[in-house]
């Protein structure tokens, strides 16, 4: 037996035909029952490290591995994913491909049957796991009828059903709305505390997981660059790689305060202790409504009703004016994607009227669906390649580009041709790091200043706060709030930024919050 659940010693890995290693000299150990967050920018090696821990690397993907990496005393170079599955449960990024069987109960039974468990033990473990993870009501459902959040929970349950000592999750909250994301993190924390399961989570939005974590491993270029408790990691990230710092840490760093807080609660306590807590927000006036001639898209009384199914949109009235930067928010299933599809004309409204002043560009959730050719230069012209930040990469296969690069290229694909009066983007920030999101916000601002109405459907409140001049919150297929970001994101709980929670809605972004704090400091509060 070993007293460490994971032991890595100078582990290196290179994918087949890759010019450079994806992991270099990785050395660390993890204790049983620990909660670890893997941080890093896109392409830093987080997913590869998770795949190495579960044995897919090198056994499934091939490639060259050197050094030692042991999970529950088994070397991943000698033991494949089947053997490691007894000790470690894994949930990879796309929940749709994490589910193998047609029914939820069968999905949970499969790992146990593979492990040779007798039928009684299988039935018992399935019921126990389903109850523990709150999916007992889904047991008799077909997997193709589940939402993304439900699929995510089922995949997690299938990974947990053998009670593994180690649970590995790759971007588990990227497809979830803030409510479902928070619920998932709480569930992981419960598993960690009550079952003693060691958890390793790779996340871009570390603020969700850090309150539960006791350790952070940060990767850059395939190397382990930080291995520290959350507060030390935040101090390191604020100084060395600001995009990895949480909004609360950036707020403190920009205001010249230290130490950086790991949670909203710590941040509020620190500000209260220093008598720096800003006054609650005064709601800004709603943005001026444009005249009819400015309108890019107008929806009037739009309904989308599925025959023998639910109502997706209910009597939606929405005006999108030229130059506006609008963010659409709401829970999974609130109707955001359908609204964008109707605005584009991709889906028909069952009732109501849609008026478009010109071409409407729509970028759907999977950018890869737009990329049909062997080379990036066949998708768009040289000018668009330059705008996508892919100058000199024209001969690259779009499948070899990173997620962010594919997203940028797909955006140029839909924007090619005549000028668009409206540009609609569905979840473009999903699974992207902060550096990419800032690039995307900058490109969208350029489009808006060029006269297009830009609408982004997202769950990312930080992106919304930094980009939008108007936020529309959907619930049950209808807008329930349509106002400035301060009004919508400043006073909410789930649909709110960390900085807004810390400052009671006085500021939404770290930059704005830091400005307020600096002003308070200059007033001589201290």
């Amino acid at each position, binding site marked *: 037996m070993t007293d460490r659940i994971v032991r890595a010693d100078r582990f290196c890995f290179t994918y087949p035909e890759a010019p450079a290693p994806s992991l270099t000299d990785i050395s660390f150990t993890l204790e049983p029952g620990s909660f670890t967050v893997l941080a890093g920018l896109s392409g830093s090696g987080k997913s590869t490290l998770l795949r190495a821990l*579960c*044995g*897919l690397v090198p*056994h*499934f993907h091939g490639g060259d591995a050197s050094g030692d990496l042991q999970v529950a005393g088994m070397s991943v170079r000698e033991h*494949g*994913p*089947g*053997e490691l*599955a*007894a000790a470690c*449960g894994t949930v*990879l990024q796309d929940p*749709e*491909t*994490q*589910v*193998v*069987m*047609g*029914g939820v*109960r*069968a999905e949970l039974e*499969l*790992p146990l*049957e*593979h492990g*040779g*468990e*007798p*039928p009684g033990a299988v039935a018992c473990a399935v019921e126990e796991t389903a109850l523990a993870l709150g999916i007992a009501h889904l047991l*008799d*459902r*077909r*997997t*193709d*009828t589940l939402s993304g959040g439900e699929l995510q929970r089922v995949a997690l349950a*299938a*990974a947990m059903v053998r009670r593994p000592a180690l649970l590995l999750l790759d971007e588990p909250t990227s497809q979830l709305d803030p409510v479902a994301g928070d619920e998932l993190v709480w569930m992981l924390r419960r598993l960690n505390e009550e079952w003693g399961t060691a958890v390793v989570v790779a996340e871009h939005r570390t603020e969700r997981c850090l309150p539960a974590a006791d350790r952070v491993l940060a990767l850059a270029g395939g190397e382990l660059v930080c291995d520290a408790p959350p507060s030390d990691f935040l101090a390191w990230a604020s100084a060395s790689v600001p995009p990895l710092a949480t909004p609360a840490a950036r707020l403190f760093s920009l205001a010249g305060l230290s130490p950086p807080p790991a949670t909203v609660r710590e941040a509020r306590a620190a500000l209260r202790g220093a008598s720096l807590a800003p006054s609650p927000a005064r709601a800004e006036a709603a943005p001026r409504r444009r005249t009819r001639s400015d309108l890019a898209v107008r929806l009037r009384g739009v309904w989308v009703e599925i025959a023998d199914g639910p109502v997706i949109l209910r009597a939606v009235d929405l005006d999108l004016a030229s130059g506006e930067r609008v963010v659409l928010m709401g829970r999974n299933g609130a109707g955001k994607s359908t609204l964008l*599809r109707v605005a*584009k004309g*991709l889906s028909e409204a069952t009732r109501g009227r849609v008026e478009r002043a010109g*071409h409407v*560009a*729509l*970028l*759907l959730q*999977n950018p*890869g*669906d*737009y*990329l*049909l*050719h062997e080379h990036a230069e066949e998708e768009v012209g040289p000018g668009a390649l330059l705008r996508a930040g892919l100058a000199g990469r024209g001969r690259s296969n779009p*499948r070899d580009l990173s997620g962010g690069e594919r997203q940028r290229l797909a955006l140029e*694909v*839909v924007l*090619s*041709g*005549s000028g668009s009066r409206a540009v609609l983007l569905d979840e473009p920030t999903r699974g992207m790091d902060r550096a990419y999101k800032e690039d995307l916000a900058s490109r969208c601002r350029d489009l808006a200043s060029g006269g297009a109405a830009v609408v982004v459907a997202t769950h990312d409140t930080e992106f919304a706060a930094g980009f939008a001049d108007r936020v529309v919150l959907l619930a049950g297929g209808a807008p329930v709030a349509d106002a400035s970001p301060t009004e919508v994101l400043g006073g909410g709980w789930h649909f709110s930024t960390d900085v807004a929670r810390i400052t009671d809605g006085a500021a939404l972004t770290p930059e704005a919050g830091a400005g307020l704090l600096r002003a308070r400091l200059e007033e001589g509060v201290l």
Partner: protein
Amino acid sequence: MTLVPVYRRRPSALHSARAGVSASFCCALALVGALYQHPLVLGAALAGTLLAAAGAGVGRETLRSLRLALPLALLVALVNPVVYQAGDTLLVRGGEALGRRWDITLEATVAGGLAGLRVMVLIVAFWLMSVAVDPDALLRVFRRVSYRSALTASLATRLVPVLARDASRMSDAARCRPVAPGRLAVTRSALAGSLDRAVDVAAALELRGYALAGRPARRRLPHSRQDLRVGACALSIALIAMAGRVAGAGEVDLYPRLELAAGVAEALLAGAIVALACAPFAGRGARMGVARD
């Protein structure tokens, strides 16, 4: 993708019986199609299957199978008289071309029609199995026979809805492009994407311990009332069909001159098949509580 049969739980005897029993019921109806050429018996098998589907609450889904079965049956019915010249009753004298005669006979035409009807019975019966028998439970039965083949089938089954959704998404993305791309480019990209998807799902299967899996343990469950009803009907259909065949009921001689047996035996056989196909769904005992997705 309306031409992909999809299983959904419903409150019916066929859905509630264990997978092996329900599959046997559908296979028994298909067996009639495989053993007989007689139009009355084939018609009874087809009607029995459609009535059973209606009784199981999947009538509309099973009727959808005719969109696949009818063109195929029609093709068989049309091709047979053209390519097969046997039979004494000449309907059309087609003359000589490409080094052979192109006559059409009554016997070959009827044979084509009956072969087409047979194809329809088989397709509709297996379609009923696809929409009314839980594929996971059925694959579990097969896993005890051939573990890896059954899991490969699971993987393929799972990929069908995933790829259908991918294809739908790619088609939407193509509509969003300012200039619609060619079908070839979309198809090529969809094929490349399906390989990626297959790799992802295979990786998930590996993570569930597939590589080390052995034959699963046998589950000993008591037989339910629905198991007994459906199983008894399946067994009866299969036995009657085989007994009738051995006894020479439903004989059809197609060549050189068409001769169809048309007596009490055929009528009884057809009536029994329809009655037994409907029997699991008749009476108070067949009514189930509602169980929905």
